[in-house]
């Protein structure tokens, strides 16, 4: 069949019409080779003009169409729809960007018309190289991988499970619940954290649709939205979780003692241990870096002591492939390490602890059974809270975590409740009190006796040093005066940072990071739950500092997005703009394979040529550009099509 090309030139109201000579362009286009029809259109994106154009395409049996109008970034899909409604393949068109690239930027009418002629001519030449494309549909997997089993990941998993979805949760540590499970009282109502969170943890542990892989990490996630294959490595289960009942007989037998990181190093644990009282799943775990059996190949005390034969030193790690349709990333945060700055005296001045350590100190399952005491076991007569530690500074983190001020005031109330006589001091440059409960909560703190607020000139205008066994806090106010407090306990309200492993996780999962090191959203304003990689969603603090309710909301939102996208039994439409290999031209040299960002190319050893997995290909064309044999072509962007457009633009101007 001979090419029958139609050219529709949109006036875009006055936008294009006033900037160039439309009748001249229509005349020019109408006389180009293979063009059987050229028409002006008032407003191509308007429903009535879309219908009129579709009717014209059908009536004139057009085989190819050039839409000379606005940016294809705006209306390419609309115009593809016009072709479809006219019974044509939607890819048999070329959009010529007359508005953004010509009408709006070339303010001389004659010059604009001349450029428009070239653009239309190039579009007509190019469109003849377009071939019909049919998007392929593939089955989607409705199951979901959740990375991180803190409150955000758990809320996503529970929401998904409640809607019948199967979920696999991968958690790096030995227990679930994340940071929130280690807190005592929650802002603002002093609800018991364990009472609120543990039932949810129990729920997910016993949920038939949720599988939890602790001490595990994700090695890779290949594939496309709806069809991912996640490779997960599970550390060797040296304590069999099906046999261990958490009786602690092994712990009593273990001869090794190391600082307990779950209590911020304020007490110790054995090399075989249960992370903290009530941690779930409630089974022992071996710390191989410190266990004599692994460091010295001798001991065996825990194995001997276990009444259930649960200890197995010979267990090996397992690698599993999981087929999932979407991924929720909920890898949480870490507290800023105040030792990175000498001004806080962290690690050098007795009595200086992080806000996280205070949470453990005041916790009934913590090192002191919940008693607020100094390292020497005394109740402190003076407690100082320092705000903005590691945040709002060029040196460490520019951002405000938005949570720590209220956490510090919550902790002040915990001090007051337990120690009515203890003096409380807060050092801050500014207070962050957002939301509907914060101001009232802060007013309550101000109304307590014995609370003194010290306003610093900037967050870093503070220094903590040791004098006579006490911590001396010196802060400079706006007038330059130094305010000094002699404290026995100093609590540092540390910034919430992205965990140290985030850049590596980002590389493994192919997720971008923002300027502060958190995972980047698809769009910070209108798409804050989706990650930059399609099919991936962010929940909780890995996307930015937030409080517990916000983390839970985001987990639920991520689950909602997934349920909306992945319908069980539904299909996923693949992008038809993919690369294709011509097996007659391909020599199988594998140059393309190494450069493909998505591992979409592989060598077919029988045919000695490359093959492309279409579900993985995103049509970037990097392979096509490097192929020494010219064997690879991107559908819709073939070298011939691009050459034709270039040649069309450069065609000598006939006056």
């Amino acid at each position, binding site marked *: 069949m001979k090419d029958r090309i139609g050219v529709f030139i949109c006036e875009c109201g006055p936008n294009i019409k006033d900037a160039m000579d439309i009748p001249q362009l229509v005349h020019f286009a109408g006389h180009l080779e293979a063009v059987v029809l050229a028409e002006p259109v008032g407003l191509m994106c308007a429903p009535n003009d879309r219908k009129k154009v579709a009717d014209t395409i059908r009536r004139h049996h057009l085989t190819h169409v050039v839409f000379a109008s606005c*940016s294809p970034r705006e209306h390419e899909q609309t115009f593809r729809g016009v072709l479809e409604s006219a019974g044509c393949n939607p890819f048999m068109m070329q959009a010529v960007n007359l508005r953004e*690239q010509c009408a709006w930027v070339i303010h001389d009418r004659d010059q604009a018309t*001349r450029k428009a002629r070239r653009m239309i001519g190039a579009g007509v030449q190019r469109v003849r190289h377009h071939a019909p494309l049919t998007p392929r549909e593939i089955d989607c997997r409705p199951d979901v991988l959740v990375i991180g089993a803190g409150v955000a990941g758990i809320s996503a998993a529970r929401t998904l499970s409640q809607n019948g979805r199967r979920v696999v949760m991968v958690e790096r540590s030995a227990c679930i619940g994340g940071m929130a499970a280690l807190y005592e009282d929650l802002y603002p109502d002093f609800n018991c954290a364990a009472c609120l969170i543990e039932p949810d943890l129990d729920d997910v542990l016993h949920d038939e649709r949720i599988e939890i892989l602790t001490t595990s990490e994700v090695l890779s996630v290949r594939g496309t939205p709806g069809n991912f294959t996640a490779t997960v490595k599970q550390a060797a289960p040296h304590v069999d979780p099906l046999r261990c009942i958490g009786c602690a007989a092994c712990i009593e037998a273990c001869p090794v003692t190391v600082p307990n990181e779950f209590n911020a190093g304020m007490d110790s644990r054995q090399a075989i241990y249960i992370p903290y009282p009530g941690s779930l799943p409630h089974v022992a775990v071996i710390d191989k870096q410190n266990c004599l059996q692994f460091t010295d190949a001798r001991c065996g005390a825990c194995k001997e002591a276990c009444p259930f034969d649960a200890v197995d030193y010979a267990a090996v790690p397992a690698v599993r492939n999981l087929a999932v349709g979407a991924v929720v990333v909920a890898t949480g945060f870490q507290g800023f390490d105040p030792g990175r700055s000498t001004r806080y005296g962290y690690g050098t001045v007795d009595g200086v602890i992080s806000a996280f350590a205070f949470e453990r100190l005041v916790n009934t399952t913590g090192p002191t059974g919940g008693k607020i005491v100094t390292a020497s076991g005394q109740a402190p007569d003076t407690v100082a809270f320092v705000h903005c530690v590691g945040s709002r500074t060029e040196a460490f983190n520019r951002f405000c975590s938005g949570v720590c001020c209220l956490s510090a005031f919550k902790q002040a109330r915990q001090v007051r409740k337990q120690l009515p006589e203890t003096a409380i001091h807060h050092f801050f440059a500014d207070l962050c009190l957002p939301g509907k409960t914060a101001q009232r909560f802060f007013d309550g703190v101000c109304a307590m006796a014995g609370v003194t607020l010290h306003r610093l000139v900037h967050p870093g205008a503070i220094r903590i040093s040791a004098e006579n066994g006490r911590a001396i806090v010196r802060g400079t106010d706006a007038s330059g005066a130094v305010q000094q407090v002699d404290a026995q306990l100093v609590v540092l309200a540390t910034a919430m940072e992205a965990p140290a492993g985030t850049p590596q996780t980002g590389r493994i999962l192919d997720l971008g990071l923002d300027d502060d090191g958190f995972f980047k959203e698809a769009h910070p304003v209108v798409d804050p739950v989706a990650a930059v990689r399609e099919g991936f969603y962010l929940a909780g603090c890995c996307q930015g500092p937030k409080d517990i309710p916000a983390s839970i909301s985001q987990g639920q939102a991520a689950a909602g997005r997934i349920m909306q996208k992945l319908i069980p039994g539904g299909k996923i439409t693949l992008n038809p703009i993919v690369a294709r290999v011509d097996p007659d031209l391909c020599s199988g040299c594998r140059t393309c394979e190494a450069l493909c*960002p998505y591992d979409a190319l592989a060598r077919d050893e029988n045919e000695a040529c490359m093959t492309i997995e279409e579900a993985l290909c995103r049509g970037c064309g*990097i392979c096509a550009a490097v192929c020494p044999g010219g064997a690879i072509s991107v559908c819709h*962007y073939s*070298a011939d099509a691009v*050459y034709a457009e*270039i040649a069309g633009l*450069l065609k000598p101007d006939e006056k």
Partner: protein
Amino acid sequence: MTVFEPRIIALLCNWCAYDGADAAGRARLDLPAQVWEVRVMCSGQVSPGMVLKAFEAGADGVIVLGCQPGDCHYKEGNLHALKRMVLLRAVLEPTPVHPQRLQLDWVSAGQGHRYAQVVNDMVETIRSLGPLAAGHSREEPLNGG
């Protein structure tokens, strides 16, 4: 006497540079009428053939515009483009096509003003180099003089 008006092909990646050019349009900036845009999916898709074809067909200059380093929609396509264009410029060295006639730069989506600056600079560079003899008639005197 005719002023030399360079003919420049701008190969724009779909995700950043093309949108940057659109942003220049939305801001109604003044752009030179002698720069003619071609959309590709990624600057890494630009093959040496596309560039040479443009010169063969009569372009006085070719500019390839991709996403800012680190922002490539396809991870590192723009860096592949960088390596390729550096090599291609070396290949052009002994030919009548001055290597400066081939440029590579980065424009992110929304950087309309940067796009305008980059293409205006390109026009100036090519103006100072004069027309490329091959492929089209050379009636115009050099340097617009």
